[in-house]
């Protein structure tokens, strides 16, 4: 009998609390944070999977799962509603004797070994839910198979002066990895790990079980699993990815990544390698005569009567008359009322900026130490005529 099996399935680590994203993640898991007008962060790794021919994805999550669950649903928006495969949300298991949270990234996969085994995969790709990038994993998988690697780690080359902030892979000329250094003081190379790994499943399975048995372990891929493989002389290869990639784990990087969409640094306009998202049946946008829109994205379901420059306006927003928005990200269903001014800010989902309020300001008027992106949290109200200062978080 032929075994029913998958070449490669994906396990997406979406468990982070996202505390550095502050109020944006109070009620939302980090992967469900809106991005780029109509997307959520998780749409990028999910769309990458679909566009790379991976049709089985386990999403490992433990904080604020309701919204993420709701968003993913049966996976239909990504074409991940499959009979054998598809997308599955995997919360920590409540077992008969014990209920435990995911102790670390490796433990999260360990707890879901039975899920992986259902698909009997040859390889497993481990992904992270807080990176914005478009990557064809099938090319990385081919590289992994061609090298007969037991583990392949995606890396990108960072400026050597920045290398000490990353996990660095030191490689031989053939791409094989001989050493891994976490945030080295004197980096030997500039290949920074992207947190994207492909393992032969039988190998990963063994190391997960060994790691779980070690009570001193942090149960973490970077700290424990990869070093253990290297120690045992397993074959590890680095796969270089040169296109756009951004960790949007901080307010500033989330804002910056949105701005990079406008500058074309990150191009999401692609007819073949599309980015998919759940759609909310909003009508096309209404753009009034009083509007002025320059170098900006406006998603559907918006009504725009004010001035917008170099900003991303998400689905279902209302921008009233005499509003000015510069260099900002307005998340879905936010309302910016008459006369309000929003500069260098992120306005959360469903937030309301009332008449003549002022959110954020231009960095030129401030010392570097006191300036930062202003943030208005999800569903917050900013009173009329009030001021939200740079760097302030409401």
């Amino acid at each position, binding site marked *: 009998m032929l075994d029913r099996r998958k070449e490669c399935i994906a396990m997406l680590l979406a468990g982070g609390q996202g505390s550095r994203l502050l109020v944006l993640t109070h009620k939302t898991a980090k992967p469900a944070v809106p991005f*780029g*007008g*109509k997307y959520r962060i998780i749409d990028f790794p999910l769309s990458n999977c679909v566009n790379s021919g991976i049709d089985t994805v386990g999403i490992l999550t433990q904080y604020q799962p309701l919204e993420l669950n709701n968003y993913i649903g049966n996976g*239909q*928006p990504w074409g991940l509603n499959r009979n054998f495969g598809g997308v599955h949300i995997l919360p920590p298991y409540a077992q008969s004797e014990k209920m435990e949270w995911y102790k670390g990234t490796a433990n999260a996969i360990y707890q879901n070994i039975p899920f992986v085994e259902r698909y009997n995969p040859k390889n497993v790709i481990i992904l992270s839910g807080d990176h914005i990038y478009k990557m064809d994993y099938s090319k990385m998988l081919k590289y992994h198979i061609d090298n007969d690697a037991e583990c392949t780690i995606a890396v990108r080359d960072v400026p050597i002066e920045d290398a000490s902030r990353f996990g660095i892979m030191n490689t031989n000329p053939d791409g094989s990895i001989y050493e891994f250094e976490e945030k080295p003081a004197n980096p030997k190379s500039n290949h920074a790990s992207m947190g994207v790994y492909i393992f032969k499943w039988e190998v990963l399975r063994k190391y997960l079980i060994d790691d779980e048995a070690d009570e001193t372990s942090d149960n973490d891929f970077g700290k424990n699993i990869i070093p253990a493989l290297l120690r045992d002389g397993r074959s590890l290869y680095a796969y270089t990815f040169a296109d756009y990639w951004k960790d949007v784990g901080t307010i500033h990087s989330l804002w910056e990544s949105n701005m990079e969409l406008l500058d074309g640094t990150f191009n*999401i*306009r692609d007819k073949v390698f*599309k*980015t*998919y*998202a759940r*759609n*909310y*049946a*909003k*009508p*096309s*946008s*209404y*753009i*009034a*005569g009083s*509007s*002025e*829109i*320059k*170098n*900006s*994205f*406006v*998603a*559907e379901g918006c009504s725009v009567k004010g001035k*917008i420059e170099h900003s*991303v*306006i*998400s689905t279902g927003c209302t921008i009233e008359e005499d509003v000015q928005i510069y260099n900002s990200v307005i998340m879905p269903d936010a309302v910016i009322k008459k006369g309000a001014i929003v500069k260098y800010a992120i306005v959360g989902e469903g937030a309301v900026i009332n008449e003549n309020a002022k959110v954020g300001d231009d960095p030129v008027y401030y010392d570097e130490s006191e300036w930062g992106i202003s943030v208005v949290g999800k569903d917050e109200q900013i009173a009329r005529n009030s001021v939200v200062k740079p760097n302030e978080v409401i």
Partner: protein
Amino acid sequence: MKKLSGIIFSNIYDGALGDLTAKRTVASLPFGGRYRQIDFVLSSMVNSNITSVGVITKYNYESLMDHLGSCEEWDLNRKNGGLYIIPPFAFGRSDVYHGKLEALHTALNFLKSQNTEYIVLSDTITICNIDYRDVLSNHIASGKDVTAIASKPRSGADNYPAVFEVDRNKSAKSITVNCPAGKNSYVGFGMFVMEREALIKVVEECVSAGFYHFEKDFLQKYFNEGKITVNVYNFEGTVLRNRDIATYLKNNLKLTDEKVHSGLFKPAAPIYTKVRDEIPTYYGDTSSVNECIVADGCVIRGELENSVLFRDVKVEESAKVIGSVIMQGTKIGKGAYIENAIIDKNVTITEGARLIGAKHSPVIVKKGETI
């Protein structure tokens, strides 16, 4: 128990829209930026808890099939009920039909298989967001055989498919077909509610006698002969009738009117359509947009005035578009000038081209052409 099933006629009035329906049904004619005409009636049915809908087709229905797909966007991918596409010749060896009665004859199997008491029948040229549950309770309370959905006419000069004079109880006193409407009369939407069993009987009776026109051969004739009583349901919400090319253009542009827009698009009763996963629309430094409806995936660097842009339209620098409808995938080159035009899908308007039509007789550029 489920009370209502729906029937949608996808080809009726194909002829009135000329080149726009040369290669598609009236039902799949794009409207309002991201929609097809059928989306409004189909979404209204879904929002009224109708979970079983038959769409009767005749020809040119490839674009309609592509649009509806598995119907998951409307939540009609169901185990019980869902959406049925009823092609011609679906029932016996009948000829391609000529009118709604014959069309219904091809749908007899669908009608007989339903376990609902009532059927709502609808064309797709009348654009509105309507709650059929309210129509049904009005129908039941009236005690009449048929309820025709209608509204007061905007202007008396045009010919309407069905015009009703009514008494104080909105009971029809007279029914006229293809004629202008008086000030106190009601103009039909081409939407009717009646009992399912009664409809089946009428269809079998009329078709065997060689009759095919629903309004003329059934509604008017049976009413005049005293065989049926007719109730008129007055719909007071926003309604747009795309009866011909001029009204189609005018009604698209009316969506920039906030009252019309909020009358059609209600948060509690969304209009669903096929998802295409376009990115948000990009407005460049040279863009100027004045009273427009813009769908996603567009790139706008030129000037737009009182127009409707569908998905994935590109308007280059110094191009100007006034009072026009630009359908999906069309590219408008630098310096082009377009006024009072309907540009179909995937058209290329080259640099500097000029297309100027009149409001009542817009220029039409057919799908895929290069100007």
